[in-house]
């Protein structure tokens, strides 16, 4: 199996450690060799694009430039996060499609002694690699503990199948790749109507009411179909559905307890890896019950105890924050 340039993305080292560990374990099992891009930077999610086009693309392109430098033979960049995946491929796509734009971005990169030739690298999401490079047969071959009896809602989200610049997926609204994978693991896959609906994205931060509604739709729909768990393939989706589920319940006076897992966690289980090594237990809504149903013991997440320090005392003294914010607003000083 060939080598891949690996772009983990910020969440993988904070909120989505479970994803990180399970990805590592699974790729090891499938001997997919991931070489992390040395000194990669944040892709800017959707936020930077909202502020300044050129810097946003320059930020993304830096990663591509680094990847191209470190490629030695590898041609594919793998991102496990849908947002990162889309940003990277978006940058490559537009730099390629619009020469002038590509040159503009490279002009910016040049300031840091970097350059990227659009079209040089192929950007792919991990799921795509597992399905189309590794192949389901190989996956099936690795399954030792089939997930029989587990009803899963395959949740693909937005940025993987849309806009899908290189049309890698079967459909932009009802793609079946994730279903096939989960079926290969022996799980019972529901026809999830909201498979590619939105998780709310950053709206949890800026229009929570809107975001909560989007989350509610997803969870309730999965619940209507009697799903035991929702399977996600993007840290943002997982976080929104998992971490905010409590608040959603509060907001709508519902009482959902829908565990949200990463597809790699289930793959790991099916491959016979220990739940501990797959980041189980780090979810807000415990998957313990659901997993017990198929005879898997996953660690019970410890309930959050009120810490000594007040949560308000989060790092970052107010001054620096304001300074930071201020500087972030006025374009010029920002980089001073």
């Amino acid at each position, binding site marked *: 199996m060939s080598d891949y340039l690996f772009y983990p993305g910020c969440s993988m080292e904070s909120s989505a450690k479970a994803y990180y560990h399970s990805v590592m374990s699974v790729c090891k099992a499938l001997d997919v060799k991931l070489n992390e891009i040395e000194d990669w930077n944040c892709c800017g999610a959707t936020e930077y694009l909202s502020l300044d086009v050129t810097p946003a693309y320059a930020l993304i392109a830096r990663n591509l430039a680094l990847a191209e430098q470190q490629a030695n033979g590898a041609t594919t960049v793998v991102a496990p996060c849908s947002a990162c995946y889309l940003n990277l491929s978006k940058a490559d796509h537009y730099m390629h499609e619009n020469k002038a734009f590509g040159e503009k971005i490279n002009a910016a990169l040049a300031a840091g002694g970097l350059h990227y030739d659009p079209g040089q690298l192929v950007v792919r999401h991990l799921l795509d690699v597992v399905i189309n490079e590794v192949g389901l047969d190989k996956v099936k071959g690795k399954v030792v503990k089939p997930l029989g009896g587990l009803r899963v809602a395959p949740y693909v989200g937005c940025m993987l199948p849309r806009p899908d610049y290189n049309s890698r997926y079967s459909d932009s*609204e009802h793609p079946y790749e994730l279903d096939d994978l989960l079926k290969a693991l022996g799980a019972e896959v529901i026809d999830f109507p909201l498979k590619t609906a939105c998780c709310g994205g950053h709206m949890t931060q800026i229009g929570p009411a809107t975001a909560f509604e989007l989350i509610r739709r997803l969870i309730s*729909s999965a619940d209507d179909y009697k799903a035991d768990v929702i399977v996600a393939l993007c840290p943002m989706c997982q976080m929104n559905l998992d971490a905010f589920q409590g608040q959603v319940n509060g907001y709508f006076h519902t009482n959902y307890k829908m565990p949200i897992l990463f597809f790699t966690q289930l793959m790991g289980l099916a491959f016979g890896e220990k739940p501990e090594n797959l980041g189980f237990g780090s979810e807000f809504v415990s998957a313990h019950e659901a997993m017990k149903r198929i005879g898997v013991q996953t660690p019970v997440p410890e309930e959050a105890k009120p810490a000594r320090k007040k949560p308000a005392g989060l790092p970052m003294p107010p001054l620096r924050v304001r300074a930071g914010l201020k500087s972030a607003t006025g374009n010029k000083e920002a980089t001073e």
Partner: protein
Amino acid sequence: MSAQEKKPKERVGVYICHCGTNIAGVVNVAEVSKWAGENLVNQGVVVSRDYKFMCSSLGQELIQKDIKEQKLTRVVVAACSPHLHEKTFRNACKGAGLNPYLCELVSIREQDSWVHTDKVAATEKAKAIVAGGVSRVVYHEPLIPLKVPIHPATLVVGGGITGIQAALEIADAGFPVYLVEREPSIGGHMAQFDKTFPTLDCSACILTPKMVDVGNHANITMLTYSEVQKVEGYVGNFAVTIKKRARYVKTADCTGCGICWEKCPKKVIDDHFEAGLGYRKAVYTPFPQAVPKYPVIDDINCTYFQKGTCKACEKFCPTNAIDFTQKDEIITVEVGNIILATGWDLFDARRVTNYGYGRLANVFTNMEFERMSNSAGPTGGNIVLRDGKTTPRSVGIVHCVGSRDKNYNNYCSAICCMQSLKFAHLVHEKTGATVYNFYIDIRTPAKAYDEFYQRIIEEGTLFVRGKVAEVTDAARNPGEEGKLIIQVEDTLVGKQRRIPLDMVILSAGLEPRADSKALAKIFGISCSVDGWFIERHPKLDPVATMTEGVYIAGCAQGPKDIPASVAQGAAAAARILGKIQQKEIALEPVRATIHEEHCSGCRICNTMCPFNAILFHEDKMVSEVNPALCQGCGTCVTACPAGAITGTGFSNEQILSQIDGLLLLTLDKKKEAVA
């Protein structure tokens, strides 16, 4: 060395047309004709005139007079585009006893006065164009058009309403017609419909009489369950190879009593005539009024053909008309002209995944609905949900499914608006349900169409202006459980709406036949990018094609409704009748010929001809062009490495000397520049 340097001894007359002010307004015609008279003497010009309207009878007489008095052997007219008046001036020359092909019409209007403003430049260009024409015409040869007889029979491909109309028109005029239909019966899509807009008369009631006429017509040979495989020949003389699929029913003995399909144990989903909504047997006629009445055995599904036992039909057939041993039959027919009325396919609504067709039970297509609403259809005309019994209380009709959408088909399917309005009426009439129409624009541009729209509004149908974003079963708000929800922006309100419904009908668009490109190849015509056949002229020649003798009509040419299709069928028929009356047709003598002594048999030209006009003689090791098949494109002339092929009308000498002429001025200029 090259021929065009030899001194011509031809006597050339040059005629510059003012075309009123169309040309004279920009080009200094007097100067051009003077210049030609003085400077093109070496090229053989003996007279050069300009005149107000060359195409007028006076203008033509002017030319004819000169031909006689000045003993002209060549004529160059500088006027409008050859596509307009080439024939006019050729005939004028003919009238004066000069071979028409010794006349050259060069365009100084479309290609000059109409597109330029700088009078000096335009005049210079006119001179160049005239010089080109003169240098060229010297190398013209007298040509005689090839006269070929026209075979009186006509091939009509497609037994839908268009083909039926065309066939009847020609047959009634007393000429033989072969009507080829792929399905077991003629009738086409129209036979599937329930009512027809805007008059709402029943489709079958107006169609079946015509079908019967076809069936009984002495001049019409019906070839149902058959397909055209190959077309050879050219206008007036086509040889068409047709494959008649085995029916496994002896039509001579069959009475169409129907016992066979009553007894046949094998039930199949009829995804063709019943649009997948109903069943048929393995031996069947598509529908009761089928013409011809004889059934066919569908060997893919027939138990006997699959398992080797059964033969129920054979046992019970009172006239022993069943014959399992029948084989496909290949026949060849001779015809003079061809009409393609191959119709359309329905857009596959499953492609629009957000509309859920195929995933959501109570989403139906327009064809499904037509069958459902048809009293002869699977539900006996009852509008019900997929469960077969529940009557919907609310129905949404979605326009433009797969049409006017860059993700699918870019064009407007033309009939969906009226069809959806018709559906609204039928649902309302039969169920009293609340009906929504979801549209982008309502397009009702034909006689009595908009009145129909008014009527539907009056009936209380609700209209929402907005392209439906999605059809889903994911309930979100109270009242949505167990229903289909249409999510749409009501663009007139500027708000998103979610409308719970029991049934959704998708007005899927019309598409070219899946095999239209292959078909076009067989008949030597061209397709648009979408796959619709291309007419000779979008306005002035809508049923002819660029290929002589091949005509198109109905939806094969583009989406259209029944009235338009019928009109085109009749129009194509009329065009052909006109040709048949003439008994013979003159082919442009622009042809390629291979000079045997120069041909080395390298066979490079062999793959050049799309009309298979070039044959290779293994014995003599030379290639030869069949002048009747040759269309005169000249591709082989250019391909020949030995220069052994010449193209009449467009010979190397003609083109090369025209280039010389066009550049005459430039060279003078450059010489002056040097001096």
